[in-house]
Structure formats: structure tokens, C-alpha cells
């Protein structure tokens, strides 16, 4: 059982019009694993993780989450999305709801869980992302870093098995990046399976079990951070790393 990957991506192709953004991507993520996808802009990283919870469709290939074929037209999307949480670059909180209400909304409306139970869990999540006292703040009253932590808590409220992070610190200023990364790190250390698209190389090196480098729609190179950063073989990887590090 433990050998079976939680997320399995096989030879995925995806085009937007005439632009092919994914040209046969395959990767596996095991339970409890943290993987980081890095690479230049436009290399297909975000598209790839958006395909994992069916926000984007794929043209060919296969993506399986816990054995569910994500791009089966008869897929119960609700079942998939209960298992896969997602955090976005722009937080995308519900602006008309307070922090606490943002976290409570999906468990209440989608899972139809009892309100007392949901609220208790939401308050624990607020504590877990270090936002005590901000329960009743509206997103417009919170800083970017605070909003992003609410967004993480909102995803966690659905008890997902895997979390997707799509450049979640890219819109933040350097000081608040840290508070969000700390939250993600706590999650990863708690055993959550995480797939991150990120430009934070130091962070990737610190928390990732495996790093994938994508360029122009293909995975150019991958490996554990210990060897990936120091012994990259492909010239494209080396060029990218030399610009970043």
C-alpha cells in the first residue's frame, strides 16, 4: 500500500491553442512526500499542478490521485477536491467573509458538517497558522501574508490528503514570505503530502524530498535537493540555477 503513489502523473500533454505547455510530463508523489517544482516562467509548472485538481483539463496522458483518474469525464469532482487542497498565488479569499467564515464555508456548505464542530476546527486552524485575534477580520483588512495563511487554513479545513501550492509567496513582500513558509514547513513536517511550485530555492532545498526542474513543458531533471543543487547535469538546469542562486 505504501508503495502506491498518492499522485501519479503519466505522460501528460496539454496545449493552450497552438501553444503546447506540457509535452509529456510524468512524476509520482508518495504519501507524506514534499516535492517542489521549479523552473523558468512559462515552463508549465502552474499548469501542471492546476491539472492535478482538474482546474485545467489535459489533452492526453493520465493523472491519478489515490487511484482516481482525474480526467475521467465521469469523475465525481467533489470526491477529488475533498482529497486535494489548493493554495493560490493571489490568495483568492472570499472578500465578503471574515477569516473564520472563509475557513468554515466549504466544510459547512460542501461537506454539510455541523456548525459547532466546524467552528471549533476553524478556530484551531487559525491558531495553527498563528492568526489568533484575526478571526473576525475581513480579507481586505489583513496583510498579504495573513491572507495567505487564512487561505492555507481554509484548504486544511477540508482535511485534504495532498496540498497544492501554486507560487504562494510570489505576491508577498520578503518579510511576510517567511511567515507563510514557516506555516508550510510546519505542515510538511506534520506529514502532509505537498506539491509546491515555487521560486524560493532556499526553501525548496530545506523542505523538499524531491525537486523537479521543468523547462518548456518537459521535466528536464529531478532529484533530491542534496544532489540536485550541487550536481545538476543538464546545462539548462545549471544555467537556471546559476541565475537564481
Amino acid at each position, binding site marked *: 500500500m505504501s508503495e502506491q503513489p498518492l499522485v501519479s502523473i503519466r505522460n501528460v500533454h496539454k496545449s493552450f491553442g497552438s501553444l503546447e505547455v506540457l509535452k509529456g510530463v510524468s512524476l509520482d508523489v508518495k504519501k507524506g512526500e514534499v516535492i517542489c517544482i521549479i523552473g523558468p516562467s512559462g515552463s508549465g509548472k502552474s499548469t501542471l499542478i492546476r491539472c492535478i*485538481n482538474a*482546474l485545467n483539463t489535459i489533452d492526453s496522458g493520465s493523472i491519478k490521485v489515490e487511484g482516481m483518474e482525474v480526467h475521467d469525464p465521469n469523475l465525481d*469532482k*467533489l470526491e477529488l*477536491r*475533498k482529497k*486535494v*487542497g*489548493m493554495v*493560490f498565488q*493571489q490568495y*483568492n*479569499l*472570499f*472578500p*465578503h467573509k471574515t477569516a473564520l467564515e472563509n475557513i468554515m*464555508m*466549504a466544510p459547512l*456548505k*460542501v*461537506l454539510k458538517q455541523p456548525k459547532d464542530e466546524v467552528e471549533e476546527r476553524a478556530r484551531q486552524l487559525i491558531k495553527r497558522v498563528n492568526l489568533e485575534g484575526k478571526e473576525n477580520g*475581513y*480579507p*481586505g*483588512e*489583513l496583510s498579504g501574508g495573513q491572507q495567505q495563511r487564512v*487561505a492555507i487554513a*481554509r*484548504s486544511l479545513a*477540508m482535511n485534504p490528503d495532498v496540498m497544492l501550492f501554486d507560487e504562494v509567496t510570489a505576491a508577498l513582500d520578503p518579510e511576510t514570505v517567511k511567515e507563510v513558509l514557516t506555516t508550510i514547513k510546519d505542515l510538511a513536517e506534520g506529514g502532509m503530502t505537498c506539491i509546491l511550485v515555487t521560486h524560493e530555492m532556499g526553501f525548496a532545498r530545506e523542505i523538499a524530498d524531491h525537486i523537479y526542474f521543468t523547462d518548456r513543458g518537459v521535466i528536464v531533471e529531478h532529484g533530491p535537493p542534496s544532489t540536485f543543487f550541487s550536481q545538476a547535469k543538464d546545462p539548462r538546469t545549471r544555467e537556471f540555477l546559476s541565475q537564481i542562486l
Partner: protein
Amino acid sequence: MNAFQQYFFDLAQEYPKWNFIFFYDPVQADRVLSGLWMTVKLSVVCVILSVLIGLIGAWLQGAKSQLLRSFVQGYIQFFRNTPPLIQLLFFYFALGQFTPTYSPDGWLEVPIISNVGWAIISLSFFAGAFNVEIFRAGIEAIPESTQEAAEALGMSRSQNFVYVVLPLAFRVSLPALNNNLVNLVKTTTQALAIAVPELLYQMVSIYNDYSTAQNACMVILFIVYILLVGVLVLAMNSWERATRIPGYGH
């Protein structure tokens, strides 16, 4: 006659062009009040129905079915591009012929939809067509990414619409909705054409019976509509303030 009635009675004697007959003749006063009451009922019912039509139409505009979307588009074009007066006449005189009738006493044949019923239907669909467009504009102002977040949390299209898109779009739509509802209240006067006994109908009847009351009727009509629309605008404005989200948009 009390002092108030006496004052207007004397005024009419002295200045025959300013006969505020409904201020001293109880029969005419009843006509004005019943007209006002009909106008208020017509306005409230049409406002509510037209908003519901607007919401349903805006939801259907996002439907998967091309047929449904074309149907909504056709509805909007028809009601937005033709005068409301013609719509009223068409509904009452043309469609009215085909509606079934019932007989309360075995002698009379009463259509199941009265002229008031047709006025409500016609005016609600008229204002509803504009409301669809107003809500659509509001919905389009809501970022795709916010809806995507709801989708990623497992919300269905209808849950997304009810809990996320609509509450936000409604706030964006309120100023434009405000304008359209003001227009709707004023357009209820056109129900006069199918003999709905609303305020204008009653006032015209009064000055047809008492030509000296014409100026007075006009003045009262203006004042009543200024107040009526004023109340609506005040209510809409306070609603706008009440739904303002801290830190959002302003």
C-alpha cells in the same frame, strides 16, 4: 369640515384653478388613497419579481446549454428594445385573449389574469430584462480566480453562485440596480393604459370629472412620486452602506 378641509375649500372658491378637491371631498380622497395604495403594491411586487427575474436570468446566462443562453438573450433583446407601453398593451390585449376564464357565478366570464395581473407580469419582465444585464455586469466584475478558489474547495456551480459570486456581484450591482428600480416605479404609471387603477389613473379620472382640479392633481402627482422614489433611493442607499465590506473596494 375641519379647518384643513375648510382651507382648501375656500382656496378653490377664491382660485378656481387650484381646486385640491381631494383635500375636502372624502370621495375624491378615497380615490387618491386607493390609487396610491395600488401604485405602492404594483411597485413593491414588480421590484421583487424583477429582481428575481434578473437573478435567474443572470444565472441562466452562465448555463452550459447554448439553447438556454440564447433564450435569455432573446428575452433581453425583446424587452429592452421595445417600449414598455407597447408591452403592456400587447400582454393585456393580445395575450389576454388567450388566457382561460372562470365563472364565479355562472354568468360572468372572468379571465384568470386581471389587468393588474398583466401589468405586474409585463412590468416585471420589462425591468427584469435590464436587471439581468445589471447582474451580469456585476458577475463579470468578480475575478475568475475567486470562483476558482471556491471550485477548488469542492463547491458546485450553484453553490459557487449562491455563496460567492452573488453576494459579491450584488454589491457591485447595487448602484445600477438602484437606477433601474427607480425607473420601474415611475413606469408603473403606464399601467394606466390598461385601466389599472393606480395613482395616475385615479388622478386623471378626478380631473376628468372636475376640470378645475387639474393643476392640483399634477402637483400632487409630482410630490407623491418624488417622495415614493425618495424612499426607495434612501432604502437602497442604506442597503449599500450596510453591505459594504471593510477593506474591500473603497
